[in-house]
């Protein structure tokens, strides 16, 4: 098991390395483009261009340029944005990351709870009225765009029925170290908004997996052993269906932390990674874009490595293959 984890982490590292190379090549080796002008941003003066070219060794061979770039980005951490002159890239990302992480982790807890509960209840009651009700709720939740739901939530809580929600602070973000209570209060509706979509997806996926599992031979064996239906559902069917949920979760979590929660961040005025990426794209702020891409890739690779380790933990057959 330990060997499996180590191997998986090494391969994750290699994937990260290749991503960084690809990102570097896209930005700096695209033919016909002057990378110095790219980094320096729009309407940069010739002196700035010369400075950038010197700093990143743009007249030197590609591998050295790659090394310098990574040196500035990861170790020196002094890569600066030339659009907003003097603002360093890394602090922007480390400033935005906790906001996004707070949003995603809280929402993930909610949607996992709701999705697993919904899927379990629906599968346990298949054929009864509650099953199609939950499944309809699921499809409705999947169909509602997050930004629309967010706007409606804001309209209701901040405007139309503000007297009812007077306990709710104005949209924004308060760090958890500053005040855990205010942190949760600021994030409760963003969490619910973001979790709605995913809870619907997870409930539907889990129900389908459970219904499949309940038709498996091993469930018949479990019944013939005299186990209770509840134990069969949780210990046998759910346990074997978790693999699907875990892999789905890895993908969703990675991409959301990497910035895919942009719409929710915009609606609730959270200056997270999604917002940062979006703004840097608008300004063509190349160093920031690069930083954000690397950061997003990091979380996706990390999440998929964690998922694979969880796989091996959940399913002994995966372990023995390696």
């Amino acid at each position, binding site marked *: 098991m330990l060997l499996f984890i180590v191997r998986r982490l090494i391969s994750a590292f290699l994937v990260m390395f290749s991503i960084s190379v690809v990102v570097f090549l896209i930005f700096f080796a695209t033919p016909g483009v002057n990378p110095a002008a790219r980094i320096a941003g729009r309407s940069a003066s010739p002196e700035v261009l010369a400075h950038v070219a010197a700093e990143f060794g743009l007249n030197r061979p590609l591998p050295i340029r790659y090394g310098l770039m990574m040196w500035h980005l990861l170790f020196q951490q002094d890569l600066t944005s030339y659009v907003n002159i003097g603002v360093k890239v890394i602090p922007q990302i480390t400033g935005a990351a906790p906001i996004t992480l707070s949003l995603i982790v809280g929402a993930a807890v909610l949607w996992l709870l709701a999705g697993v509960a919904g899927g379990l209840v629906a599968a346990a009651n298949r*054929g009864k009225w509650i099953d199609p009700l939950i499944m309809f709720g699921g499809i409705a939740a999947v169909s509602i765009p997050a930004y629309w739901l967010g706007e409606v939530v804001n309209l209701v809580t901040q405007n139309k029925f503000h007297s009812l929600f007077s306990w709710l602070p104005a949209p924004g973000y308060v760090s958890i170290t500053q005040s855990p209570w205010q942190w949760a209060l600021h994030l409760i509706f963003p969490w619910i908004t973001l979790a709605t979509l995913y809870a619907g997806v997870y409930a539907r996926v889990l129900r389908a997996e459970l219904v499949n599992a309940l038709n*498996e*031979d*091993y469930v*018949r*064996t*479990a*019944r*013939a*052993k*005299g*186990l*209770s*239906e509840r134990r069969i559902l949780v*210990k*046998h069917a759910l*346990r*074997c269906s978790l693999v699907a949920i875990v892999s789905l979760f890895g993908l969703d979590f990675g991409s959301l932390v990497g910035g895919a929660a942009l719409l929710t961040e915009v609606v609730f005025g959270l200056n997270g990674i999604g917002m940062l990426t979006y703004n840097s794209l608008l300004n063509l702020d190349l160093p920031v874009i690069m930083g954000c891409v690397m950061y997003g890739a990091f979380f996706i690779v990390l999440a998929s490595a964690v998922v694979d380790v969880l796989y091996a933990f*959940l*399913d*002994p*057959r995966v372990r*023995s293959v390696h």
Partner: protein
Amino acid sequence: MSTNEHAAPVLELTDLSVSFSTRQGLIRAVDGLSLSVGRGEVHGIVGESGSGKSVAMYSLLGLTRDANASITGSVRFEGREILGSGDKAMQPIRGGEIGMIFQDPMTALTPVYTVGWQIVEQIRQHTDLTKAQAKARAIELLGEVGIPDAKRRVDSYPHEFSGGMRQRVVIAMAMSCNPKLLIADEPTTALDVTTQAQILDLMSRLRDVHNSSIVIITHDMGVIAEMADRVTVMYAGRPIEAGPELDVVRHPRHPYTWGLLGAVPRIGERSERLATIAGNVMSPLDVPVGCAFAPRCAYVMDECAARPPWSDGDHRSACWLSDTQRVALRRKES
């Protein structure tokens, strides 16, 4: 009724019928099955695929989950009527008093738990043993069913065993609570020939040691000859012949049983093709009102349009042929 006069039957089915209402119409999967299994007795149920043997056994344990199924008749286990009892009432019986072995050992075990865990789960469901005691018992059981190095293998996962070894695990699990009755649903069908013989040996030995009764479902007359004390032959959901194994195998009365026995290849006899029974099992939707076998029967007569009665005695059959006709037909054939 039973050949085992010294004991009341462990299991007694009377007129068990299972039907499914489908969009195409009513399917009678089991139609009037009666049999009784004495203590320590091995009762074979034999028939082609789709003849309702497995459905009958699943139904008696309440394992038929189809909402459209309707089950009638009577199932008495140890003198108690158990048909129609709810899941709660059946749970102590399932796995505790009646053990079950399934056809395909490759899928019968939950893939994510060790075999020991799964045996312990069943033991603890039915007894007050602690985890450690149950695990010791699981190791003992695995050793008993012939798994080498049971102490270590108890912590292996199902995929780390071969098919035959997995079937041994399933048998160990079924025997874990010393059930009075073991139902084996084609326990050897998915296994290769040498493994089949080992598994049958194992089951016979366990029967002798634990004195449990066994109902063995099969389509293999060889398994019947090897294991069974009594046999019930089923066709299209109906019992068509039943009696002591020797009587049924040596003096079969029903033309279908003749066909089944004729289909067993014999060593020393060279033949170009394997003997078969002409035709196929008909769709369960259009089983005739009369004798179900009539459409495929070589000796069909006018009487066969009505359903033949179930004859009396120890060796029973449901066929309109008279004993003299049978003797004449069998002589002519051989």
